């Protein structure tokens, strides 16, 4: 069930340049059903900024009723979010996530770009818990923007790329995947659309899931703001309810 609740802010800290890690607590966590779902946040009561902000759930702990979000604070709403203390108005969990049950094969590769990295963390943890081998290819703008390298390393190999070459391999995640000749039985990807498109092409032989972004209004399927073009008779699906995670091959890249 989708809840709208005041969640308690347990902690909030900057973990990389402009990147914040926010830990929240509340019964909403009980409702999370899979990694890759997101929440829709009303940063504060006033009318500016007006709309909620969609942020992926990066990890969660059902026992403690806690979840962690990681976000980049560079726009009006997220900059305000970084200053909040006390309570936070959160709606969620929303959307479908990354399927981690009944995965065939041994090895999963998780590919994230920038603020697409966060939801892969819980995904990786759950795959690992189910006995899979997990490989991570994470792309960032520059050395200052890198986060969670150690956390991912604790689960499996990590390849970092940076656009400016200031850390790890210079270039894009797909460059690294090709360069290090990564082999896997399934992929999970989240990041900018051109990256998703490139990932689908590179891993065209194995099944996979990708998580999409789109500007949202309601976050629950009512306003038709967040559609994306899909192959198949429907032509359009909604990122907020049909996604944000879609199986490989479903999205039409414009």
């Amino acid at each position, binding site marked *: 069930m989708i809840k709208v609740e005041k969640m308690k802010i347990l902690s909030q800290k900057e973990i990389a340049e402009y990147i914040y890690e926010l830990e929240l607590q509340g019964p909403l966590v009980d409702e999370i059903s899979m990694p890759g779902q997101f929440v829709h946040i009303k940063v504060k009561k006033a009318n*500016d900024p007006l709309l909620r902000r969609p942020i992926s759930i990066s990890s969660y702990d059902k026992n403690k009723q806690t979840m962690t979000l990681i976000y980049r604070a560079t726009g009006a709403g997220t900059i305000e979010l970084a200053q909040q203390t006390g309570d936070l108005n959160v709606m969620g969990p929303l959307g479908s996530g990354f399927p981690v049950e009944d995965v065939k094969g041994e090895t999963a590769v998780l590919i994230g770009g920038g603020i697409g990295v966060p939801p892969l963390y819980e995904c990786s943890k759950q795959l690992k818990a189910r006995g899979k081998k997990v490989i991570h290819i994470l792309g960032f703008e520059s050395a200052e923007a890198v986060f969670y390298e150690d956390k991912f390393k604790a689960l499996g190999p990590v390849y970092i790329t940076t656009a400016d070459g200031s850390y790890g391999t210079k270039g894009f995640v797909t460059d690294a995947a090709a360069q290090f000749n990564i082999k896997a039985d399934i992929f999970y990807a989240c990041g900018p659309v051109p990256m998703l498109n490139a990932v689908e092409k590179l891993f065209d032989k194995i099944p996979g899931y990708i998580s999409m972004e789109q500007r949202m209004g309601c976050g629950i399927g009512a306003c038709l703001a967040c559609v994306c073009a899909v192959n198949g008779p429907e032509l359009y699906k909604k990122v907020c*309810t049909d996604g944000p995670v879609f199986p490989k091959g479903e999205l039409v890249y414009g």
Partner: protein
Amino acid sequence: MDKLRISLPGLELKNPIMPASGCFGFGREYSQFYDLSLLGSIMVKATTLEQRLGNPVPRVAETSSGMLNAIGLQNPGLEKVMNTELPWLSQYDLPVIANVAGSMVEDYVEVAKNISRAENVHALELNISCPNVKEGGIAFGTDPEVAKELTAKVKAVSDVPVYVKLSPNVADIKEMALAVEAGGADGLTMINTLVGMRLDHRTGKPVIANKTGGLSGPAIKPVALRMVYEVSQVTNLPIIAMGGISSAWDVIDFISAGASAAAVGTANFVNPFVCKEIIEELQAILDELEVEHIHDLKGRSWKVGETANYRA
């Protein structure tokens, strides 16, 4: 709840609160949050003759205290609305106001004729003012003669009362109101969105794929309020008001300006419970103001010498 019960052409409502068209789909999504039978009515998403895919994305952008949208009337088309959406809604004790749109007069007439015969549709809302449809939607909303004729044609085929939704993108909204009144409208709904735009700072290009979009939310409330104030003084038609409503006090403002009922659009996205909460709070406010019925406040902004009772 007697203080909130109201009676409008075709509509006997438990209360004067309803979601605005396009901001609540056909109710399914919000039915996860509360029992839709609590609502006074529901203005469902615009229905066109054929299915529409709408505009490319991005379709929305945020602005200061507002948002722009250019959904482009995406909807499953008349047949699916008649066979699936309206029957689904009939499980609720909820009179439906069907929002009717089209590109040509014939489309409007065809949709109106059919949808007005659906059992739970108690009124039509003629969307002559959608700013996001290219083939001429906007002309209906800004030309009084065209609006009048369209109203008359739809009125001629409709089984239920017809409310016309006015566009704020005009120099004189009173003129438009009087024109559709002359065309036989049973009521008015106002306002639709103001045409606006947001650019990406860095590229300088429009954020919304459609380039311009419709501005809604608290930013437009002062304009909507002024228009209801003006129109309610020159027509006898009941007005269902909308434009930036997000609280019970906003509703009181619009009733004071001369509206008979109020619709909530954008605020549903911010708080999915908003309509339910407004209904609850209205009751308390009327008690506080010592008002017998919400319509005792109707038009008090411009009625002379009628404020004394309500002064806090």
